[in-house]
């Protein structure tokens, strides 16, 4: 019964959804893209500055400076999230602050803060990766598939 109801739309529903299409405030997509481009670019620029800093002032090479850079960026994200600023940046820039590693950091940190009231084990521990978990799961899975393709192409087909 519920399934049937979900599949068929009554004329009233179709008509109202058409009104909604018209009345709904649209997302300003172009404006959002521009904001995301600049904020995302700015985050990457800061990352580059930090990398350069580590290479010049410490004993890092271009290959090894990546890890401390990511750690530093995530530490800054943690502070911004804890002080309640990152969600405001997120509302402004959308994908610009969600796609870089800072977005991943924010999703972990915000969940950890949020579930502090339920205790460290079932609260923080169990919920920390609630939003970031899918990124890890599908990231690992995608890497696995790509590795298989690479193996087939290079080892067996000799490309």
């Amino acid at each position, binding site marked *: 019964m519920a399934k049937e109801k979900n599949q068929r739309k009554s004329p009233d529903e179709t008509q109202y959804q058409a009104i909604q299409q018209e009345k709904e405030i649209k997302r300003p997509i172009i404006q959002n893209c521009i904001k995301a481009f600049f904020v995302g670019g700015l985050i990457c620029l800061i990352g580059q500055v930090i990398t350069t800093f580590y290479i010049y002032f410490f004993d890092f090479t271009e290959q090894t400076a990546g890890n401390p850079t990511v750690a530093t960026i995530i530490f800054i994200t943690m502070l911004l999230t804890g002080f309640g600023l990152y*969600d405001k940046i997120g*509302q402004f820039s959308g994908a610009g602050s969600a796609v870089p590693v800072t977005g991943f950091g924010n999703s972990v940190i915000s969940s950890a803060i949020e579930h502090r009231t339920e205790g460290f084990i079932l609260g923080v521990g169990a919920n920390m990766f609630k*939003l970031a978990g899918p990124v890890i799961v599908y990231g690992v899975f995608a890497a696995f598939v790509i590795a298989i393709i690479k193996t087939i192409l290079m080892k067996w087909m000799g490309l």
Partner: protein
Amino acid sequence: MLLGKRTWNFPNKPVIISTGTVGGPLEKEGKIPDAFDVLYDENWLEQNSFEQAQQVLLEEAIDQAIKKSSIQEEQVEFFLGGDLINQITPTTFAINSKDFGYMGLFNACATSTEGLALAAHMVDSNAANFVLTGTSSHNAATERQYRYPTEYGSQKPPTAQWTVTGAGCALVAKQGTGPVITSATIGKVVDMGMTDPFNMGGAMAPAAVDTIMTHLKERNVPPSYYDLIITGDLGKVGREASLELLNQKGIHISQDKFIDCGLSIYKNDQPVLAGGSGAACSTVGIYGHFLQKIIKGKVNRILAVATGALHSPLTVQQKGTIPCIAHAVSIESGSGLS
């Protein structure tokens, strides 16, 4: 007395003898800070969790409503109310130290007028002398349950709404000074197949329209009978859609008489996107702001129509639609008011 199928007429005209309204920091900076008896500067209210903070909001609203009336807390017989949090715990926990008979209600953001209609019905039919009814919501507690962690940096679309941090209570009595409740129309669940949880106003508009039309028809009055028709939390999108739908059905209400609480609480430059929402939105708007207009004699008759979206995070994830409801209560200037 039943009129038609879903409208109650209250011949004994129960009186709202006092109200209590409480708000949070964003409400304090909003358009109508005068509508609140108590305003808090921060979201935690010195509690350990947002849910406990919400409980304190309701406790304070109850205390204010009783303090402003001429009766003692012991004289209140029943409390009807609810909120948006799972198993309506903030309401239950706020009441558990009180000596009231308690009926927990859930109709999402329409709980305020659901409670008011039932309270009026109980008083009108001699089932009670003094009934308290109220709702509460807390922005962070609601965000966390329905959406993402409060500090998560996701971008909300312009159709999204901001949950009001606050609580409101009304004390309904047989006699006394205050605005009177003359009738109520109980809404039915209306589902137009809308699925976007970031556009609640759009989903709720048809429910508001259905209840308003049923009310006018069953009470046999024209829309002009009311000085104001006040919806709960339709926001920009829902208000526009409701006006369009009403127009299509041949009911013409002028723009300035069709007011939404969600658009009345915050200033235009506050970051609330399409407007306020939440169980406290209609409660503080109606009890705190619009009842004052009746008491001061600026308006005589209002129709309060709180709207609620009856989905859960689970039904949204399972690709369910958003069923909605609206209840209407007509409030008029009356007993003892100049």
